[in-house]
């Protein structure tokens, strides 16, 4: 007689041991250090911090090591850890106008106050494999300049002055933390931007690309892209003093999009906004384009049924931890529901044979 | 004294700064067919959408009186309103695709109306649906087919069946033949006319086509720039129009 398979527990333990072994790989190769990941795989670390919604390079590097370099798995580890952290309070908004920029470009003006600054970018590199990295290659020294003392103004301010670009109104809305409140539809822009900021980079990229190809086309210019260090402040309520608690790297993109005007508004430029932890240019620009596409209603644009315009579609599907979880749950046992379907198909077929 | 089934008082609706309809008052009696004519932009579609609950008017009163029960249409809760629309009203769209589920069989489409008002017996739903498919001259062998396999005329007839199956008290029709080829228009009109006579339906029909109004409507109103400029018995208005605009409409159509 058949005896049902037991031993899920043993199987899980063995599988996890094997996983640890294979993660370590050949023990004759030196163990990967967290510092190496942190210093040399910085863009992976920053993506994990951005989509994990937790700024901590050590934890992100650890997560990357633990996940064998699978970034979505690493993001997942960070998210789960984040859940358990107590909240001390909320910092006031960071001031990106005070950013110490390592990179700052505008595609709309050749020369701007504060200057264009290329910074450490892959742009204009030739994508040729650099075999010298196989050995310890010679690293060219970058020229050093002093950090500019004066603030670098946002480029879009100049369009603002002329009244050529849509004004962002301060509606004094206290943004809700989407990780502490359920997202409900229609969402407002603050919640939308929070979702997009921790959304999957690939998903945002594809959506932004679709707007460029005509699905809710909103021809975009990169009004400004800036990357650099900003201070995070915190007001200690007991002492009533504001202190700097951290300095973080963020990427900010403001897009300028043409707009023909509608019954409501005369022709003007409109904007989309992207902000991410770390140096994530591709994501920040994508985010700005998607943000702009989602703003069709407030601008009085037509809904053309494009995916990037559909708030509920975008926000419900942009989170890779939700998506990957639900997708991967298909690997769980489904014996019971499958059995139920089996019986149904058999019954329908039996009846079909009978009536033939 | 006969109480009007529908009484409208000073109904107004505008969009931003554009007038949809302004200060409309009218009555509709049981068994009456009322035609609304006017060129596009005259406000006739705005009016019918307000009366049928598709649009929220800015001002005015809409009172239905059905089986001696008065319903203040603009002052009931959303759920009461939806229920009233489900059970007492029907709306035949110009484009049948707006009134049908294209991924649901013909029988399912007709049946949905019954199920939405509480029918829970498959056999009864099925036989009523079959009866109505027949009534609108669709072969009953097509009852399990999807509407996407139907011609334009058949789709419109299916939509009519879906709307009439629950015996609604007021039926709104927005250019019911407007989207059809001339060759099929006659057949659909003929069907509507025979159903109206047979079932003694109360109908408000919007059309820019005076021939449709002449054929179906007992009474008519003429709209221009959002207001009613002339109303009365259809024969009377069509034979002896008082307003210059109506005269123009009538002469331009009848001479063709």
């Amino acid at each position, binding site marked *: *007689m*058949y*005896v*049902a398979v037991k*031993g*899920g*527990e043993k199987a*899980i333990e063995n599988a996890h041991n094997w996983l640890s072994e294979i993660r370590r790989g050949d023990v004759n190769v030196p163990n990967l250090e967290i510092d190496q990941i942190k210093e040399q795989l910085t863009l992976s670390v920053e993506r994990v911090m951005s989509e994990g919604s937790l*700024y901590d*390079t050590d*934890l992100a590097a650890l997560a990357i090591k633990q996940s064998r370099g699978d970034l979505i798995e690493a993001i*997942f580890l960070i*998210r*789960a850890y984040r*859940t*358990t952290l107590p909240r*001390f309070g909320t910092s006031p908004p960071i001031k990106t106008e005070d950013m110490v920029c*390592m990179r700052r470009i505008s595609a709309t003006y050749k020369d701007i106050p504060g200057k264009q600054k290329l910074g450490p970018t892959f742009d204009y590199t030739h994508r040729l494999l650099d075999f010298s990295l196989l050995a310890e290659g010679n690293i060219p020294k*970058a020229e050093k300049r002093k950090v500019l003392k004066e603030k670098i103004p946002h480029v879009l301010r100049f369009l603002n002055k002329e009244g050529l670009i849509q004004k962002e109104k301060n509606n004094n809305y206290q943004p809700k933390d989407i990780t502490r409140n359920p997202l*409900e*539809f229609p969402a407002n822009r603050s919640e939308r931007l929070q979702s997009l900021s921790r959304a999957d980079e690939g998903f945002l990229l594809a959506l932004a690309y679709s707007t460029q190809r005509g699905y809710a086309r909103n021809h975009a210019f990169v009004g400004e892209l800036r990357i650099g*260090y900003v201070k995070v402040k915190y007001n200690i309520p007991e002492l009533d003093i504001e202190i700097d*608690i*951290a*300095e973080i*790297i963020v990427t900010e993109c403001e897009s300028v999009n043409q707009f023909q005007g509608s019954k409501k508004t005369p022709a003007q430029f409109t904007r989309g906004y992207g902000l991410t932890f770390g140096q994530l240019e591709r994501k920040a620009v994508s985010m700005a384009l998607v943000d702009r596409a989602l703003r069709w209603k407030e601008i009085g644009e037509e809904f053309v049924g494009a995916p990037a315009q559909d708030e*509920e579609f975008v926000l419900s599907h942009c989170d890779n931890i*939700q998506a*990957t*979880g*639900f*997708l*991967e*749950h298909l690997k*769980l*046992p*489904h014996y*019971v*529901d499958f*059995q*139920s379907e089996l*019986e149904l198909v058999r*019954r*329908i077929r039996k*009846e079909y044979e009978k009536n033939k | 004294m006969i109480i009007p089934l529908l009484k409208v008082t000073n109904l107004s609706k505008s969009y931003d700064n554009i007038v949809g309809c302004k200060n409309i008052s009218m009555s509709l009696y049981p068994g009456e067919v009322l035609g609304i004519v006017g060129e596009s932009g005259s406000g006739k579609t705005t009016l019918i959408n307000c009366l049928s609950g598709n649009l929220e008017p800015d001002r005015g009163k809409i009172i239905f009186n059905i089986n001696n029960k008065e319903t203040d249409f603009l002052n009931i809760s*959303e*759920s009461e309103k*939806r229920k009233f629309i*489900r059970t007492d009203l029907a709306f035949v769209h110009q484009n049948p695709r707006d009134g049908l589920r294209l991924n*649901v069989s013909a*029988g*399912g489409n007709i049946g*949905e109306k019954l*199920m*939405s008002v509480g029918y*829970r*017996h*498959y*056999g009864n*739903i099925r036989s009523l649906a079959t009866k109505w498919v027949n009534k609108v001259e669709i072969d009953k062998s097509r009852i399990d087919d999807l509407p996407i396999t139907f011609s334009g005329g058949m789709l419109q007839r299916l939509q009519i069946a879906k709307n009439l199956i629950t015996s609604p008290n007021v039926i709104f029709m927005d250019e019911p033949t407007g989207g059809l080829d001339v060759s099929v228009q006659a057949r659909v009109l003929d069907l509507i006319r025979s159903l109206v006579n047979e079932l003694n339906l109360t109908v408000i029909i919007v059309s820019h086509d005076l021939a449709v109004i002449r054929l179906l409507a007992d009474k008519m109103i003429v709209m221009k720039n959002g207001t009613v400029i002339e109303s009365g018995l259809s024969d009377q208005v069509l034979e002896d129009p008082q307003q210059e605009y109506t005269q123009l409409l009538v002469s331009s159509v009848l001479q063709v």
Partner: protein
Amino acid sequence: MRKTNNVIKIKDFKVDKGLPFDQEYNFAYLDENTKKMIRRAIIKALCIPGYQVPFASREMPMPYGWGTGGVQVTASCLTKRDTLKIIDQGADDTTNAVSIRNFFKKTSNIKTTEITEKATLIQTRHRIPETPLKKKQIFVYQVPIPEPLAFLEPKVSETIKMHSLSEYGAMHVKLYEDISKNGHIETAYAYPVKTNDRYIMDPSPIPKFDNPKMNNSPAIQLFGAGREQRIYAIPPYTKVKSLDFEDYPFDPFKAEHACDICGSKNTYLDEIIVDDAGNKSFICSDTDFCNKRKNK
């Protein structure tokens, strides 16, 4: 160039200090404020049977879709006096059941059992035990898609309206279409029900064989959907009716076999292929029930 080393850390970097996992977390993993938030949602759900209450689902250390909703509900209801049973597909020893049970053992050091009668709190995926549930038991379902109308209307903003106005005609259209096509209602699991004569509710992907067990049950039934951020509930002794037509009544069928281990004829069975020729064996999906019956 990079200056992130200057960042002042709020939290010590303690993961590598070799502390056992469980000591770093609160009882049953979630912090007390989160549990309070979830318990409020549960109470609201119990007051409006079948209504989906939105809640701020947390990220859990297992993937969305693997029972995070159920785990959060369980974690919020769990007390130190509870005895916990976890099943998946009816069995206590399927991989995900083992994994979730271990999670609660680690984070709460709670007593666990495989015996349905002994449990005060049972978390399940896809089955209701054959042993009838009792008064004072809490029964938690893991729910992937809480919205029964989702397959007719994917937009939540629309389905919310349909629920609030009881516009459920479209739901029966699906059943109508099934019958006219195949002579049967084609839904075999996650078969929709009407709770307390008001809300149409998804019972989670249990086989429809289990649907009648929900009706008038003395236990508290809670449903948690983590990814979709919804909690709903059936209070004890509540009417739960599976949708059907008067002339096509609900039919909770199962395989027409008896269990090859315990011989039971009226329990839900798993079908197992036993050899290369495709020969089949049928055994109870509820392993606890099967063991007890066999040992009697």
